[in-house]
């Protein structure tokens, strides 16, 4: 089962830690909010994905086993 990263845009306030921790998958837009690659995270990068998810101060970065709704 592949995993995807999803941002809850309502709870995200743009701390930007996720982009620091997992730049392969997450970049920041012009206002400091994360742009997350919607494609499945390859197995060898899952550790980075998990670290980014657990570092989010507002719990806005979510790991999903479903398709990204967007």
């Amino acid at each position, binding site marked *: 089962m592949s995993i995807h990263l999803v*941002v*809850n*845009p*309502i*709870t*995200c*306030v*743009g701390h930007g830690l996720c982009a620091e921790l997992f730049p392969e998958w997450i970049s920041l*837009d*012009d*206002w*400091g*909010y994360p*742009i997350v690659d919607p494609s499945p995270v390859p197995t060898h990068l899952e550790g980075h994905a998990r670290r980014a998810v657990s570092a989010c101060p507002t719990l806005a970065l979510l790991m999903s086993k479903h398709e990204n*709704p*967007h």
Partner: protein
Amino acid sequence: MTAPRLGPTSPRLVPGTRQRLLPRQPTVDLAGHVDHFGPRPDGGRRLIAEVERAGLRGRGGAGFPTAVKMQAVAQRHRSVVVANGTEGEPASSKDKALLTLAPHLVLDGAVAAAEAVGARRVILCIERSAGTAIDAVFTALDERREERLDRLAIQVATTPSRYVVGEESALVQLLNGGEAKPTFVPPRPFERGVGGQPTLVQNVETLAHVGLIERFGAAWFRSVGTLGDPGTMLVTVSGAVRHPGVYEVPLGVAVSAVIAQAGGSSAGLAAVLLGGYFGTWISASDDAVLGRESLGRLSAALGCGVLIALPSGACGLLQTAGIVRWLAAQNAGQCGPCVNGLSAIAAAMDLVARANPGGEGERRLERWLAMVKGRGACRLPDGTARLVESGLRVFADEVTRHRVVGPCPAARQIPLPLPTPGGWR
């Protein structure tokens, strides 16, 4: 009910009749309604299959197949039906017109949908400022109560005047006692909605069509419109037309024919804003018809059936900039990319429309339109981006002229409704 049963053989409702929802003889009171449409047949789950055969799609804007939504809720227990008549789109008045002129048809459809999906409650939502429609609905509900017409509870909820209120998840949150702001999905309303129960949210016009399909069937419904886009739809025509107003038209009709039905353009026709502020500009020379395939080729959609006629000589870029500025102010203050991105896009659009040294406005738009799409809890950023993209495409010559010659005089604008937003509850 002792009125004679009128079916599709009634001279007023023969297959091919184009005035279905809004017949020439108004059907405001219950007697007139039953006289025209006949009484409601016994409902049931079979209705979902009939709606599917009819090919009915939602008339609130998204155009999602109605039967699919009904099926999703029918598979779950203890559900709720929300009839969405909030009509937050400022240029649209078809839902208010329908609720005012044919409240019983909407209520019939809502009850039919509720019985079909096994719901026990119906909540009809109307914008608080729509006094005439609200009065008509309360009068209709009194009549139905007196006749003991409905076996389930129908409640009315009035909603604040806000653009995003009608978005499903925002409406559900409002009905749950919160603010009318979109929520992060999933769970979607059909999974967990009002009171945590599975909730079917359908636009009131969609439900009125359901009320007709329950009576007269899918084949009757399909006797007007096209194979891919069956039935009729309500449109609100405004801008540079002689007789602005709400019209019922068959799907598949030419946009130019709808403009002609509204008395024709009063000052030449340059373009049409189709679908309202959440819609797209199409050029008068596009020869579009009101159907998904034709509009899809133009990256446009039917939306909620708004047509705003832009006269020749008006500046489409200035008009777009005004709308985008307004849309940016409608954000719910929740999602960073929307809060920041839409005001940045509005400023860049102002540049393109007014003074655009070296094409800087277009460069910024190109970057930011791509950046905001799909990044809000609701589709406000996506809709705004789509509107701007359509404006840049349809008014491409204007963009160049503005860059080289300078902006148009603002006096050429047509007035657009840009209401001051109300509160969130």
